[in-house]
């Protein structure tokens, strides 16, 4: 398993623990975390835990299923940075209750999704390995 894919899975596990901690703190005292702790918890779980697990496993498995090597290893490496940056920007936005920061984080996260989709689409080509 490629080191980058193992990093995706590792980040996924770490975000699950961080997002869980945000939920626990909110249950203990809803006022302890500034901004919107509930949306912070939800987005770390969705864009951190679940999405990064899909990225890591998908980048490992989908090229093998399609019989082609991954279209671009470099694009996948950049996707690791972009996805993490998007999540951090969005989390900062929830903490600071800043809508522009949340929007920026959302757009950057979306770019990460797009990089993943583009890479996988060019791996699973319209014309297969034999065609």
């Amino acid at each position: 398993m490629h080191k980058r894919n193992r990093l995706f899975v590792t980040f996924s596990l770490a975000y699950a623990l961080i997002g869980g901690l945000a939920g626990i703190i909110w249950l203990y005292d809803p006022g302890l975390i500034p901004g919107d702790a509930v949306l912070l918890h939800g987005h770390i779980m969705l864009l951190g835990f679940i999405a990064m697990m899909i990225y890591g496993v998908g980048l490992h498995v989908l090229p093998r299923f399609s019989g082609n090597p991954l279209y671009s290893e470099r694009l996948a490496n950049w996707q690791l940075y972009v996805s993490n940056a998007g999540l951090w920007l969005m989390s900062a936005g929830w903490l600071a209750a800043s809508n522009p920061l949340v929007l920026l984080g959302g757009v950057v996260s979306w770019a990460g999704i797009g990089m993943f989709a583009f890479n996988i689409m060019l791996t699973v080509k319209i014309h297969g390995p034999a065609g």
Partner: protein
Amino acid sequence: MKVQLLVSDWCASCHQAEKVWREVSEERDFDFAVVDMGQPEGRELVSRLRLKTIPALVVDDRLAAIGVQTRQEALSIVGAAPAKLAAPTHHVGLSMGTTGRAAVHSSLVYLFVAGGFLAVKGSLFLGGFARVAPLHLFTLGFMTFMVYALGEHMLPRFTGNPVRGGVFAWLQLGLAHAGLLMLVSGFFSGSRWLALAGACLAWLAFLMFALRMWPVLWPRQAGAAGAEPPTGTIREGD
């Protein structure tokens, strides 16, 4: 004349063998099937004929050849079979067809666009008449195109019946794109009539898909799909 090509997903030369036989089966008229080693039918063939190597070619229930045949070799094996009239249907094997792959790509693009609303707006629902526009990018875009792709790839494999492709399949995909884009534009521009026209086109596209799947699910020959074993059991030699 019954020709079965035994293949498996992990076998690279099987894709090549399948391509050769697919071409020949579209020129000559014989009963052709690609049998997957991962399915009960394939395992039954392996154990009955004690096959050890794939791709393996089984003609009328006897091992006829192993490995990849050239086009000439394949044609000489089916030498007795008459030429085939042009037919719009084709059998489905390991590799997804071109319309299927196009549908997967379309599906992913709609997923990405719908995902944009989720990432930027935080929801698949908007206000006013446009309320359900992003939702339909997800359901009528991502999900329906994925059903189009997997339906035409998997149902023929599951049933062993051929699926109609070609112009009819491309027309279906074209109508589905046009319908969805008009529906969503109609929602955004507040034009009920544009949305309605789009919904009708998308509905016609699905009707074409259903008509293509009908003979796959319920083939003409009575009994061809009637006396089947329960799911998952291995069929004994027929």
